[in-house]
């Protein structure tokens, strides 16, 4: 028997590579579990479904996946897709009892999914936006030289949420910090960010916080480097595929990111071996989606604990489960199905063990960059309805 996982993310088109990076991670994680005897004796199969980052198309693929017997859904690219999948999974499970599916969200970070919109069927293995912001502001707290902060983001719910979280957390943790700018720009429409950089320069900011992703992130930092602006750009997605290659040395000392782990952290030999195996198998990509491995290993643990691969049983077993990961302990909080884990602030550096994007630059932990899970933790408003 096999346990089918449906990986629903873009596998083609402009976003295809970021979906593929996730897909390859899950496949490798599954292979490792299978090699170790599988889950409860069953082998895991991860099947890719290309959703072309379209929520509508995701629903078609979801249906296809369910019909082909998948009971576990993996997805991460795009909160709009995640929202559509949560909604569809909820409805499917309500309308088709006995055929429940569970959704493991590995990258969609909208806080709502584990707050007001939380669902028993949804588990998030990535830290959500507020938690990441917690990490960023925690780090800023330790940097007395940062006195002025500039917020810039994409003009939509996520960008607004990031800005709001930054404002609130900074005023709490560092009331002395002045917010010298709070700017939103339309999504994926700006070609030349220099005018924005100029505004940042004029404001005298010491650091920039941005939730930008994709080209909006890269172009922003690139424009900063071109204008000689050497201040930390604290990003959520600085580590996304190809960003460092595109920025080149301009990213050193400028580009910062917050993640649940980086390859250049102190780790066990097993972990190093895994990183190298990944790179070897998938030379285009780097070991980035650590949480893919966490997700699969925690699934394995939960299934073994429940003694069954049944989605409801696994979901219940996952609640409150603790896993000792390569970069710290991960706990799946039962109240809201949000994984709690330590976060790391890192920046681009030249002398690192593992480079990224096939160049010699890589991510290195910054001073005081380790944010323990408790510090990153965010409260939840989730009132979850559980089956039975």
């Amino acid at each position, binding site marked *: 028997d096999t346990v089918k996982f449906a990986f629903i993310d873009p596998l083609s088109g*402009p*976003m*295809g*590579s970021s979906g*593929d990076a996730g897909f390859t991670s899950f496949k490798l994680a599954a292979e490792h579990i299978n090699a170790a005897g599988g889950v409860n004796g069953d082998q895991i199969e991860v099947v890719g479904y290309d959703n072309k980052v379209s929520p509508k198309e995701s629903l078609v693929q979801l249906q296809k996946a369910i019909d082909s017997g998948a009971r576990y859904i993996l997805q991460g690219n795009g909160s709009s897709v995640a929202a559509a999948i949560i909604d569809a999974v909820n409805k499917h499970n309500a309308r088709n009892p006995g055929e429940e599916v569970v959704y493991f969200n590995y990258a969609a970070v909208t806080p709502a999914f584990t707050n007001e919109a939380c669902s028993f069927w949804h588990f998030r293995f990535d830290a959500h936006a507020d938690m990441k912001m917690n990490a960023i502001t925690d780090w800023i707290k330790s940097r007395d030289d940062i006195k002025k902060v500039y917020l810039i983001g994409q*003009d939509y719910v996520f960008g607004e949420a990031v800005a709001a979280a930054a404002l609130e957390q900074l005023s709490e943790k560092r009331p002395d910090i002045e917010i010298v700018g709070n*700017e*939103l*720009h*339309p999504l*994926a*429409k*700006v*070609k*030349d960010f*220099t*005018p*924005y*950089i*100029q*505004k940042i*320069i*004029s404001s005298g900011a010491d650091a920039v916080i941005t939730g930008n992703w*994709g*080209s909006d992130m*890269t*172009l922003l930092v*690139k424009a900063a480097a*071109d*204008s*000689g*602006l050497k201040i930390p750009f604290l990003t959520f997605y600085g580590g996304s*595929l*190809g*960003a460092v*290659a*595109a920025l*080149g040395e301009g990213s050193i000392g400028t580009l910062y990111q917050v993640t649940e782990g980086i390859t250049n952290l102190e780790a066990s030999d097993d972990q190093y071996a895994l990183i190298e195996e990944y790179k070897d198998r998938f030379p*285009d*990509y780097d070991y980035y989606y650590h949480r893919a491995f966490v997700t699969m290993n925690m699934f394995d643990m939960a299934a073994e604990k429940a003694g069954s691969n049944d989605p409801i049983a696994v979901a219940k077993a996952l609640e409150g489960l603790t896993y000792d990961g390569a970069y710290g302990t991960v706990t799946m909080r039962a109240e809201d199905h949000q994984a709690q884990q330590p976060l790391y602030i890192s920046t681009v550096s030249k002398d690192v063990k593992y480079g990224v*994007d*096939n*160049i010699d630059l890589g991510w290195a932990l910054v001073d005081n960059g380790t944010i323990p899970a408790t510090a990153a933790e965010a409260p939840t408003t989730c009132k979850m309805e559980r089956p039975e």
Partner: protein
Amino acid sequence: METIVFSLLNGIIYGLLLFMLSSGLTLIFSMMGVLNFAHASFYMLGAYFAYTVMGATNYWVALILAPIIVGVVGMGVERWGLRRVHANGHVAELLFTFGLAYLIDEIVKIVWGRTSVNYQVPDALNFPLFTIYNAQYSAYRIFILFVAIFMLCALWYLLKKTRAGLIIQAALTHPHMVGHLGHNVPAIFMGVFGAGCALAGLAGVIGGNYFITDPAMAVQMGPIVFVVVVVGGLGSLEGAFVAAMLIGLLQTFAISINASFADIFGFLGLSPTSEFGSITIASMAPMLPFLLLVLILIVRPTGLMGDREV
């Protein structure tokens, strides 16, 4: 003052950049009437070719060679593809370029991989040229400025000093008659399309390292180039130039305005906390070109300086 100087400077550079991106399209669109949706893909090809050529030789060779290769590819596309489609009208041509864009994007992924390549500004141009109000202006930006002006002159020469422009326009509607007058219409079409593609390629060589060179760069360029060409007016190089500058300046100035709709229309009772009132001019900036496009076409279907309906 600071804002004005900045905005002016950035606006001009951005405008020139836009002009550079759209100049090839100006040529193809106004001469051949082809809404070339693959324009951005040729732009991307330019960047990738330059990356490869630069790897083997140096940037200056790439600057010359890459556009030529793109131009040749463009000529091939015209010769074996577009020419056949031409008889079926503009929608067919447009769809052809649509499909071509997919094709090029995928081929780029096969050849150069799915993620961005490390195509960087050459060291010779990678230094801050001058600094005003703490902001550095890299030499490369000024280089862009010169290349854009060069492209303007080259195009101007092609359109005004040669009869090619006239011949092509005539050949659009009366290909046979133009042939009877002794002009080799197919060759001219091929040449024009190739030249337009080469210009796109040149923009790619320059833009690829100024921005990012990855397989998504074509998609990201989006319809803004059409806006420039159409707002400027068909058949008008000056128009395209003016439109590019106008859009560049408009957008850059708008970014520097932090006022929200509530600040401006407050007298109408618009509250700053309402959804509409809280929108700032700055956040609207990238939408302005499209607003401009719609307004211009409603008022003046020939565009700013065009001599015929788009």
